[in-house]
């Protein structure tokens, strides 16, 4: 079995993975149901869970809380499962088919936006082959409203945070299969999920054909709870170590050659080391004529650099 020391190291690694770090882990989402849910909401939560797998946990039990009134139980769950994103689904007469997307900072609620599902087509209803689990999706936001309206701006940031997945240094070109498209039009937000087919075009870049795989949502924005400006700024503060260190004294010219400057002290030219000509050496009590002849003979003294 595992020795005591292995258990200690395992628990230490576990705690270290949950501690604050310079470059953070992928944000995981907790998907949960409220006191009363409809078939639409439960199916929607399951579909979004499959989009977000493996960086998500789906809770089966109902949680009788109201995030907009009391967020303590959400914060408690986030601490226990180390999740900084959440999706809370509920259904009642006043707010039917309600989804609350939210994120936390330091286990306290940062932003919460409530979206109502007006129209929903689930994954199972659209009969096409789906993308493999864990593919990093391409995200497209369309509509100038995402740039103009403050609430929609935050929603864009929140949806990006929710769906983007891990940050990778490189991506396999053939693996760019999944695309999530959000459109803000006519007071509604349309979310569509497509599978990307790369067709041959005449040149290197392929031609795109899209095939809808689902799920497909027509959302309407309901309540919002956005973080105050200073809390939002605090959450964005990056540690200094992450900022790229600027290398001084490096410049490039038009051809791409790297240049640098070397600073030297002032040289005493009288003490410059030159080639010694034996014939030019001063002789003790020498004859001037011979010296002059010897001096006239050599053409140039090569200065060694």
């Amino acid at each position, binding site marked *: 079995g595992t020795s005591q020391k292995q258990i200690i190291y395992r628990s230490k690694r576990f705690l270290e993975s949950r501690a604050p*770090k310079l470059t953070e*882990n992928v944000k995981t989402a907790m998907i949960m149901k409220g006191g009363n849910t409809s078939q639409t909401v439960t199916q929607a939560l399951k579909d979004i869970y499959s989009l977000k797998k493996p960086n998500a946990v789906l809770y089966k039990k109902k949680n*009788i809380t109201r995030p907009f009134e009391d967020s303590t139980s959400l914060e408690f769950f986030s601490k226990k499962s180390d999740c900084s994103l959440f999706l809370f689904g509920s259904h009642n007469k006043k707010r039917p088919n309600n989804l609350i997307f939210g994120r936390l900072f330091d286990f306290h609620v*940062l932003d919460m936006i409530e979206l109502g599902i007006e129209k929903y087509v689930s994954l199972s209803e659209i009969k096409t082959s789906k993308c493999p689990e864990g593919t990093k999706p391409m995200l497209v936001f*369309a509509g100038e409203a995402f740039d103009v309206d403050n609430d929609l701006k935050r929603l864009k940031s929140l949806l*990006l945070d929710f769906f*983007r997945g891990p940050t990778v240094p490189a991506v396999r070109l053939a693996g760019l299969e999944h695309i999530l498209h959000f459109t803000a*039009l006519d007071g509604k937000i349309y979310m569509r999920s497509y599978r990307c087919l790369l067709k041959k075009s005449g040149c290197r870049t392929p031609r795109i054909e899209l095939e809808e795989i689902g799920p497909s949502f027509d959302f309407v924005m309901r309540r919002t709870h956005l973080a105050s400006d200073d809390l939002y700024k*605090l959450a964005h503060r*990056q540690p200094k170590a992450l900022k790229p260190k600027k290398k001084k004294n490096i410049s490039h010219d038009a051809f791409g050659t790297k240049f640098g400057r070397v600073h030297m002290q002032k040289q005493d030219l009288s003490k410059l080391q030159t080639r010694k000509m034996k014939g030019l050496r001063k002789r003790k009590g020498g004859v001037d004529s011979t010296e002059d002849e010897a001096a006239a003979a050599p053409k140039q003294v090569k200065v060694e650099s």
Partner: protein
Amino acid sequence: MAACSVEQLLAKAEAEEAEKLNSITVKKELDLEFDIGNLLAFDKNRVEVAVFRQQKKDEFLLALARDNTQLLINEIWKQPTERVEEAIVAKLPDPVTPLPREKPPPKAKPPTKWEQFAKLKGIQKKKKTNLVWDETAKEWRRRWGYKRVNDGTKEWLIEVPETADPNEDQFAKRVKAKKERVAKNEFNRLKNIARAQKGKAPGLGLTPKAQQSKDELARAVSVAKSSTASVGRFQDRLPKEKPPKNTGKKRKFEPLIGNFSNEKQKQLELLQVMDSKKPKMDITKAVNKQMREEDREEAAAKYKKGAGKRGRKGNMPGKGKGKGGKGKGGKGRAGGGGGKGRAGGGGGGGKKRSKPGKK
């Protein structure tokens, strides 16, 4: 004639190129904003709502998505690529969009004693190689660990130094020295951890807060004053500073041998109280206690009504239990005191309230 055919060729080549690019070009009024690190594209172009409402929504959205995806793919294909194990991979730049962190950035740990010393002396960390050449074994051995270079434990012969006692066990001495070194290292490691964790607020909360009340400030002043070598005896007071109150002795004891008559008086009074059948009672105190108890009962009744409602909706077990427990404890005490008070008060008050005729 040659010139004419060259022109024709060029025109033909251009037309072919344009045709090739036709399949992947998309015309947009405004260029999209890209964040390739996040595989993100943002299309700010306006769509006429009236136009949108007329068409079939899904088809319109599909066409829009196709165009935007095409532009995004064009951007991604512009990135530098390399071949990694039979797959072509495009290198992505760093993400540009600022997103909030999960947790606050880690706090810098305070440097350990050795780190402080090294910084002071300018000692740099030297990277050592993992393997060292061992002459005796004629091979590369580890610097430390299993089968290391200078393994002191494997020695079968230790010379007794001249200054040492001939009867001393040198092997045991080595083992003991190693144990001591290990224990000292562990002790220093724990001290470093303790020092790292301790660097928090100074005692008594003398850190300045945003709004400090008058007595907090007064307390801070008095503590600062008495933090001298002579415990504040020779510290002058500022011209308008008032002498500190409540910082002196908390209890006053009479001197042991002093006022004899006073002492006699006190002892006799005590005996009187012990003798009397009636409980010694302070009427004002009793009445105050009774009023407090009644207020507390009212508050508890109100809270129970409110807690009952909330109990069904939300789970606040901690709050409810805590308050209930404290309330019960308080009530118990007050009940006991109040009971006595009530009985006495009732008796005393009753006496007072009796009809004048009877009296």
